[in-house]
């Protein structure tokens, strides 16, 4: 796989969690307008890979580049061009829906349109309600509004459809299409079909190491002698 000078790519990535190799030798590349879907059974490392991509954790091996530059070289530049939505919602219950969104938008450079984003996720009517009053799906929608409020060419989404109702899923799909039509890149992990037809898919299960204990004996999976 070639590294794309104008896209988002990684080579030879490995992830280690608590002394266990989750995946290794993983390459990916997405060009502008492209989509990458991470699939694989529970525990195969989808979330872990997204956190590497976002620069929250460092890969145990390999590196990740944005437009040809390794992200560890100029992280702030990379961060300014990237949105990450993880499993957790980063919503403050005491602040209103609008205040929550404005806060996250203010952390980032560039133009901001809070109202349009709220409209887009159908929360405009709840804008002045404290976020504690939201249900699970409404909270998730508020989280997703973040990526619509300020522009960034790269979206990293960890199971974005969790807790959303079908209407909200449709709206999300529309937003993703628009984003890609404008040359944006999207990487999403998911356990349910996202309905992005032309996306490249990486099956994390295929990158699980054969010997997956760092310390283990190859054949039995038992801890090796010297550790005991």
């Amino acid at each position: 796989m070639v590294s794309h000078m104008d896209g988002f790519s990684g080579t030879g990535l490995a992830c280690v969690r608590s002394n266990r190799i989750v995946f290794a030798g993983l390459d990916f590349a997405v060009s502008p307008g492209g989509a990458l879907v991470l699939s694989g059974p529970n525990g195969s490392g989808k979330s872990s890979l997204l956190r590497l991509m976002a620069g929250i954790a460092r890969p145990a091996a390999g590196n990740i580049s944005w437009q040809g530059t390794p992200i560890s070289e100029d992280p702030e530049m990379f961060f300014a061009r990237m949105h990450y939505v993880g499993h957790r919602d980063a919503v403050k219950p005491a602040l209103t829906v609008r205040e929550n969104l404005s806060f996250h938008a203010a952390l980032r450079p560039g133009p901001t349109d809070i109202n349009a984003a709220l409209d887009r996720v159908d929360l405009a009517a709840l804008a002045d309600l404290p976020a504690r009053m939201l249900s699970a799906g409404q909270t998730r929608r508020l989280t997703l509004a973040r990526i619509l409020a300020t522009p960034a060419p790269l979206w990293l989404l960890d199971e974005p459809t969790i807790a959303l109702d079908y209407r909200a899923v449709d709206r999300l799909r529309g937003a993703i299409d628009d984003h890609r039509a404008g040359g944006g890149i999207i990487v999403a992990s998911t356990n349910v079909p996202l309905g992005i037809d032309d996306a490249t898919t990486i099956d994390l299960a295929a990158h699980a190491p054969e010997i997956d204990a760092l310390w283990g004996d190859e054949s039995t999976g038992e801890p090796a002698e010297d550790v005991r």
Partner: protein
Amino acid sequence: MSGFFALVGRDIRIALRQFSDTMMVIVFFVIAAALFPFGVGPEPNLLARMAPGILWVTALLAAMLSFDRLFQNDYDDGTLELLVIAPQPLWMTALAKIIAHWLTTGLPLLVASPVIGIMLNLEPRGFGVLIAAMALGTAIISLVGALGAALSLGSRRSGVLLSLLVLPLVIPVLIFGAGAVDAAIGGFPATQQLLVLGGLLLGCIVVCPWGCAVALRLAAD
């Protein structure tokens, strides 16, 4: 910079929206200080003699209680990850949170300390120095406490852990803070102690936000 002010503003807004919270640190301060006369006995002389010590120790413990939530909420709900990957230097983020913390707890403690001084029969001529020393001291405590909070992030019972990290670090504050008040009560100039506190503050301003940033990045990983 807009992110910096957004963060200070957000933290203050959260604190103000729950105004009673800020009150609570003060009330803890008052109650903890009030406990001593119960334990030690109410003789005015003994109390007056202990007053600077009790004042500083209780202010410290009160501040301590406010640290365990300083980064914890952001950590639990995933905001911290986002702050770490926000396109601004992480030490600035840390500094913003520290400033907000001082404004919402250090400042109220500062305001409350003369009242406690009266409760403990502190001699009147100690008050001026008390306030000056408290101003420096609470700022140092906010800085060091934030560092401790960041370091202990992610461990369970981080409240207790962080006291362990922070208390030894603020012992110097305690010694010079109480020393300054003692000096003032005794009629001596407290300049030297205040200068030391000022020096400590400068050192902390340089070291703590940076240390926080490193610790926060580690915690998010």
